[in-house]
C-alpha cells in the first residue's frame, strides 16, 4: 500500500509540474494584462510603471523562474486585480464552492441511486423505461438552460426561492458557511439541483446497469434460495455491489463540480471558484488563473487518491490485492 501511495504521489508531482509549465506559458501568450488593468487614458510612463510593479517587464523565462521559485516556497503570487495573495482569493471562494458541490453530490446520489436501482429491478416495466428515458433529458439538456428554467419557474414566477447569490454566511467551526441556515439552504437548492441533474442522470444509468447485472449473479440467486427478504437482498447485496462504479464516477464528477461549476455559478451569480476563474480570465489576472488551475490539479489528484482508497474499503478484493502487491 505504501509503495503504491509513493508511486502515485510521484506521478502526481510530475502532473503538477507539467501543468504549471503549460499554464504559465499559455497565459503569457494570451494578452498583456497592462492593456486591461491600466486606465485607458494612462500614458506610456504610467503603463511602464504598472508593468514594472507587476513584474511584467521581465522576459518570460525570468518570470517563470521566479514563479517556480516562489511556488516551491508556497507562494503562488499576488492577484494583479486585488493585490492579495492569489491563493487567498481562491481559498476565500472555496467554502462556497464546496458547499455547492457537496449539496449537488447529495442531490445526485439521492435522486440517482433510488431511481437507478428501481429501473434496474424492473427494466421492462413502464416505470423502468420512464426513468431511463427521463435520464436522457438529464444528459442532453444544457446546464445553463436548466438553470435559467429553474430560475424562471421557482424564482421569477413562483417566487419561492432566490434567483441567485449566496445566503448569509455564518462561521461554523471556523469555516464561513451558508449551509446551516434556512436562508442559506434556500440559496443553495437551485444551483445545486442544476449541477446535480446531469450527474444524477449519470448515476441512474450506472446504477441501473449495475443492478441488472448483479441481479443475475449466482450469489443473489443463492440469497433468494436461502430465503432472505427482498429488502435485505437489495439493500445489502445489490447496493454494495453496484457502488464501485458509482463511487468512481461521482469522485471524478465531484472534482469537476468543484473546479468547473463555471456555467452554473455564472447563471446563479454564485460567488464560487468557477465564477472567480471566469472573472479572472476576463481581467487577465494571471496569478489567480495559474494558482486556480494548479489548485484544480491538486484537488483532482487528491480526489483520485481518495477514490482509490474508497475502493479498498468497499471491495475486499482490492484490499487483498494491494496487500500482496
Amino acid at each position: 500500500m505504501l509503495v503504491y501511495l509513493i508511486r502515485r504521489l510521484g506521478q502526481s508531482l510530475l502532473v503538477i509540474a507539467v501543468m504549471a509549465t503549460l499554464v504559465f506559458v499559455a497565459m503569457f501568450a494570451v494578452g498583456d494584462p497592462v492593456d486591461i488593468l491600466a486606465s485607458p487614458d494612462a500614458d506610456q510612463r504610467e503603463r511602464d510603471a504598472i508593468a514594472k510593479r507587476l513584474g511584467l517587464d521581465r522576459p518570460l523565462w525570468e518570470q517563470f523562474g521566479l514563479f517556480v521559485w516562489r511556488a516551491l516556497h508556497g507562494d503562488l503570487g499576488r492577484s494583479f486585480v486585488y493585490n492579495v495573495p492569489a491563493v487567498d482569493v481562491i481559498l476565500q471562494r472555496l467554502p462556497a464552492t464546496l458547499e455547492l458541490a457537496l449539496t449537488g453530490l447529495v442531490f445526485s446520489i439521492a435522486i440517482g441511486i433510488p431511481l437507478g436501482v428501481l429501473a434496474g429491478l424492473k427494466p421492462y416495466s413502464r416505470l423502468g423505461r420512464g426513468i431511463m428515458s427521463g435520464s436522457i433529458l438529464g444528459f442532453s439538456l444544457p446546464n445553463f438552460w436548466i438553470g435559467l428554467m429553474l430560475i424562471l419557474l421557482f424564482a421569477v414566477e413562483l417566487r419561492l426561492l432566490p434567483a441567485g447569490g449566496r445566503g448569509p454566511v455564518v462561521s461554523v467551526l471556523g469555516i464561513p458557511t451558508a449551509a446551516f441556515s434556512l436562508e442559506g439552504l434556500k440559496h443553495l437548492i437551485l444551483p445545486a439541483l442544476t449541477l446535480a441533474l446531469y450527474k444524477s442522470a449519470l448515476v441512474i444509468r450506472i446504477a441501473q446497469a449495475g443492478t441488472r447485472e448483479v441481479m443475475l449473479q449466482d450469489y443473489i440467486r443463492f440469497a433468494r434460495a436461502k430465503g432472505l427478504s427482498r429488502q435485505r437482498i437489495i439493500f445489502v447485496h445489490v447496493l454494495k455491489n453496484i457502488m464501485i462504479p458509482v463511487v468512481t464516477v461521482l469522485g471524478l464528477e465531484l472534482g469537476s463540480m468543484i473546479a468547473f461549476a463555471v456555467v452554473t455559478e455564472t447563471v446563479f451569480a454564485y460567488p464560487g471558484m468557477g465564477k472567480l476563474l471566469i472573472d479572472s480570465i476576463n481581467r487577465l489576472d494571471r496569478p489567480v488563473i495559474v494558482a486556480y488551475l494548479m489548485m484544480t490539479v491538486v484537488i483532482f489528484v487528491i480526489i483520485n487518491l481518495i477514490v482509490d482508497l474508497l475502493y479498498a474499503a468497499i471491495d475486499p478484493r482490492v484490499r487483498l490485492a494491494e496487500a500482496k502487491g
Partner: protein
Amino acid sequence: MKRLCLIGLAGLLPLAFSAPASAQELKIGLASEPTSMDPHFHNLGPNNAMRRHIFEGLVAQDAEQKVQPELAASWRALDDTTWEFKLRPGVKFSNGIEFSAKDVIYTICRVPTVENSPSSFTFAVRNFTSVEAPDPQTVVIKTGTPLPLVPNNLATIGILSAQANGGENVKYRAGGCEGLGTPPKSADFNDPAKAIGTGPYKLANYTRGTSIILERNESYRGRAPHWAKVTFRPMSSQGARVAGLLAGDVDFIENPPIQDFERIKNAGFQIAEGLSNRIIYIHLDQFQDPNWKTPGVKGTDKNPFLDKRVREAVSKAINRQAIVDRIMGGHAKAAGELLPYPLFGATKDFPIEKYDPEAAKKLLAEAGYPNGFEVTLGSPNDRYINDEKIAQAVAQMLTRVGIKTNVDAMTASTFFTRRNKFEFSMYLAGWGADSGEMSNSMNSLVVTLQPDKGLGPTNRGRYSNKRVDELVVKAMATVDDAARERLLQEASKLAMSDYGIIPLHFEVTPWAFKKGLSYRPRVDQYTLATEITQVGS
C-alpha cells in the same frame, strides 16, 4: 397583475418564503465589482463609484460631470499655477475626528505610495510642487506648469483622515512627503474599522465576490441619506442580474441588456437611461513613416487612409442612424464629435455626418480607388454594447461603397493587446472621457502619439495634425475656463473636418429598478445609492 396580487398578499399573509425587506434597505445588483475598498488602489469606474459613498473628495462631479463643491466649499485659481481650496468647517470623519486641511495634504501624499496599484491615481497629484495649509480651512496647491484640470482630477481622490492613519505630522514634498508615517495598505480598507471617510455611508461589511454592505453614516455633514442600509451584490452575468431583479432578490440593477427591456417593463419594473460620456469610434491607421506597411489592406500598395478623401468616404458610407435604430434599438445617439453636449468642450448641435454612399463612391474614385480596396476591421466582441454587431454593420456599409471589409472580432483582452501593437488598419473601439471634458478625449484619441510627453496615449490610429496638437496642448495649459472651452471646440471641429477619427455614436447607459424608485442617469455611468430616491410613498 398576478405579481401585484402576490405583493399585496405578502403584506397580509405570513408567507413562509417571503422575507419582508425593510423600507430603508436597498439592494443593488452591480455589473462589475469594485476590486478594492481602498479609494486610491485602482482607477476604475466601479471602484470610483463605490468610493464616493464612503470617502468624499474635495470636489465631486455631478450627473453631467460638472465639478461641484464637496469637502471644499469653494476654490479658485489664484494664478495659472496656484489653486486655493476653502474647506467646509465642522465636517467630521465617521469616527468623530474633525476634518481639516491636514487630511488633504495627507491624502495627496498617500496616493503615490499605494503598492501594486494596477491603475494608479498619481496622474491627479502629479506635478504638484507644493501643497500647503496656511490655516486649517485652506489648502493651497502650486503646480509646476499650468494645470487647468486640477479640480477635475482631485474629484477622483477620496480624502483620508491623517490622524486615523498616523500621519498627523505630514509635510508635502514633491517626490516624497515627510512625516507620512506608515501609510495604510490597500487590504486594510476592507476592514470597516479602517475605512474611515466623511461620506454619507460607512462600510459595514465587505466580502469579496459576495456583497458590499454600507450603513448610513449618522454623523454625515449633509442631509442624511434616505437608505439606512445598502447592499451591493456583484452580478456580472446579465441574465443573472435581470433574473435577480425580476425575482426580487435585488431592487436595482446596472446595465440591463437592451434585448430584455420589454420583459423588464412588462413585469412591472422601470428603466432609466441616459447619455454616457462614451463614444464608439473607428480609428484608421494614418502612420506616416515611409517604411510602415499598414496591415490588413489588400488591393493597393499604398495606405489609402493617408488620403483625406478616403477617410471622408468611410465616414459618409456609414449610416449612423441605422446603427442606432436597428442595432442599438434606439438606445444610443449618433455622434458628430467625441463628446456629447452639454459636456465641457462639446459644441451644441455639432453636425453629424450625413449618410451618402454615392458621394463616398465618388470620393474613392477621385482618390484613385475606383474599384475600392480590401481592409480588415478589428473589434472587441465583449467590451461595448453590441460591439461586434456594430462592426459587422459597418463592414457591410463599407463593402457597399467598394471598400471590401472583413471583421476580425475577438475578446477584449486580446483585442486591446493587438490594437496597442498597431495590428489593425482599421479598428472599432470606445472611449469614456473620465474627466468629463473634451481635453481628455482629444488628447487621448487625436493628438499625435508621443509616449515621452504623455500625449496621444490611445491614438492608435496614429493620426497626426500639427494644428490640432497645438490647440489641444494650449488648451491643456489654459486655466481660464471660457478660453479653454473655445480652444477645445476649435480643435474638435478641425479634427472632425479632417476625418482624423470617425465617431459613430454615444452609448446610452440603462438602469432597471422596481416600481417606486427613481434614478437620474449619470454621464459617468456610476451607480450612487445616495441618488436613488423613493417616489410616491
